[in-house]
């Protein structure tokens, strides 16, 4: 019995080498060295399944959706809607609650506009946090300017966690929405979203989660979370760029006016007045990113085939190893040391500018992100110009981290000479 279990376990062991072979870009050379791609939080690389699905679409399906009576158009429509179903099933959402967008940014802008039009008036408050990506700050600033509403920020602690006591105090009868990230892109913090949602719901306040950094790493169940809006981007979950998803509870979507006009969002257009489709089509003006939508489902299928438990196990291993190795480097200061973290390590080296370190690592074939990561308020808070951020994916290896550490030491040696 024991032996059988062990054999089974070894079969399901994550075979990184064979997975890496499914990602052609991982074998390119940069400055004459093998690429080490640690910029996965910015965008992930694509497996052959995804790359091939893009060409298959254009070779055999390409046509406009929801319009033609001809064969290709119905084939494209079928696949487009089947992809919506795949994504809905993955999120445990109803299919009519899944809206195609250009990405997380557009999804948040859509809610800020349409929910804002329906529910936010002068003097109302929106709560976000100081650890948000600019894409989850600026749409709310625009909304607040438009409606003369007030934007409130949950502060963050030194270790990079949300100040939950403050959050509780910010929730009031004036609060119309809470919008925070599920996982922080610059700190890696996994936020206590269940608690955030239940505290807001206790006061009948809906919650939007920016899931751009969560979706690549964990299985998200919108019903279990009971979240009102959830957004993510295709290109961070091993799918194409220019496609993203907004999940919204039907009860909200039905009450929200369109975001943009034209194309598929109309029911009837007359010179004096138009009527609109029910969600989700109401929010999908113009010809959508058909290929992106269909292939996003391919990417989601790919991740499910790998299995989120296996993905998490591999990524946690990489995070722990990188954190341990980096800790031994003199003058290192981690930015973001939350208890629950995604596979992101952000740091600075005493006396050195992150830009210089980034350039030196690039020369050695290593792709990290340096700068403020579109989270300037966080950098202001820590009084730093930016950080060096290494973000891992399941296709990264312990050996790559070893090369990275050696390269980092070399960079420091040159810069400190």
């Amino acid at each position: 019995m024991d032996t059988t279990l062990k054999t089974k376990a070894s079969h399901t062991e994550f075979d990184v080498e064979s997975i890496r072979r499914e990602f052609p870009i991982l074998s390119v050379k940069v400055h004459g060295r093998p690429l080490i791609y640690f910029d996965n939080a910015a965008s992930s690389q694509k497996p052959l399944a995804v790359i091939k699905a893009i060409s298959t679409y254009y070779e055999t399906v390409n046509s406009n959706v929801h319009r033609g009576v001809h064969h290709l158009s119905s084939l494209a429509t079928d696949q487009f809607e089947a992809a919506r179903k795949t994504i809905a099933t993955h999120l445990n959402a109803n299919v009519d609650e899944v809206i195609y967008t250009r990405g997380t940014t557009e999804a948040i802008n859509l809610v800020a506009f349409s929910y804002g039009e329906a529910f936010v008036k002068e003097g109302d408050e929106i709560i976000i946090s100081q650890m948000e990506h600019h894409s989850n700050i600026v749409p709310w600033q625009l909304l607040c300017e438009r409606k003369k509403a007030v934007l409130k920020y949950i502060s963050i602690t030194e270790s990079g966690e949300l100040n939950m006591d403050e959050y509780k105090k910010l929730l009031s009868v004036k609060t119309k929405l809470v919008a925070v990230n599920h996982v922080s892109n610059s700190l890696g913090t996994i936020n206590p979203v269940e608690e955030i949602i239940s505290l807001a719901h206790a006061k009948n306040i809906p919650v939007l989660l920016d899931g751009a950094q969560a979706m690549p790493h964990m299985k998200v169940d919108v019903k279990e979370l009971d979240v009102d809006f959830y957004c993510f981007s295709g290109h961070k979950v091993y799918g194409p760029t220019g496609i993203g998803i907004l999940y919204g509870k039907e009860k909200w979507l039905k009450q929200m006016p369109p975001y943009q006009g034209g194309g598929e969002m109309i029911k009837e257009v007359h010179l004096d007045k138009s009527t609109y489709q029910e969600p989700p089509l109401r929010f999908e003006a113009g010809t959508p990113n058909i290929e992106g939508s269909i292939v996003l489902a391919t990417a989601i299928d790919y991740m499910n085939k790998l299995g989120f438990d296996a993905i998490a196990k591999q990524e946690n291993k990489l995070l722990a190893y990188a954190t341990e190795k980096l800790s031994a480097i003199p003058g290192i200061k981690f930015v973001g040391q939350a208890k629950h973290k995604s596979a992101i390590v952000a740091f600075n080296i005493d006396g050195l500018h992150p830009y210089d370190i980034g350039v030196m690592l690039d020369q050695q074939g290593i792709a990290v992100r340096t700068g403020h990561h579109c989270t300037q308020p966080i950098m202001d808070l820590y009084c730093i110009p930016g950080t060096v951020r290494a973000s891992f994916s399941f296709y990264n290896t312990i050996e790559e981290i070893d090369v990275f550490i050696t390269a980092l030491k070399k960079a420091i040696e040159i810069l400190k000479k």
Partner: protein
Amino acid sequence: MSIEEAEKGLIEDFEVFDDWMGKYEYIIDLGKDVPMIDEKYKDENHTIKGCQSKVWLHSEMKDGRIYFTADSDAMITKGLVAMVISVLSGHTPEEIMQSKLEFIDKIGLQEHLSPTRANGLLAMIKQIKLDATAHALAKK
């Protein structure tokens, strides 16, 4: 020395390096000799913001020629800034306006001019040309 001659000199200096390390060590060294901007000019008006590293630049006209002083918070950017200044400083506004700065490409540093590098170098070169235009107009 003309701008082109100064560029040629820099290109020759870099020819000795056959690996990236030597090249970047030299860039960093050049940064240490940048004509340092006076602290009093390190204000908002003299700041050129890249997305990542900051550059401060000041220009002054003396006897019909422009002299630059600068600084940056990143070492590599500072070295690149020092190189641009060493080539352009001491020339007339017209000469500076017409300069092509081909040395950056020839040394293989063109990627530092890419907007994605966001180091402020591209913005600094634009500012230098704007300063030169302003000085040229003031002269008239």
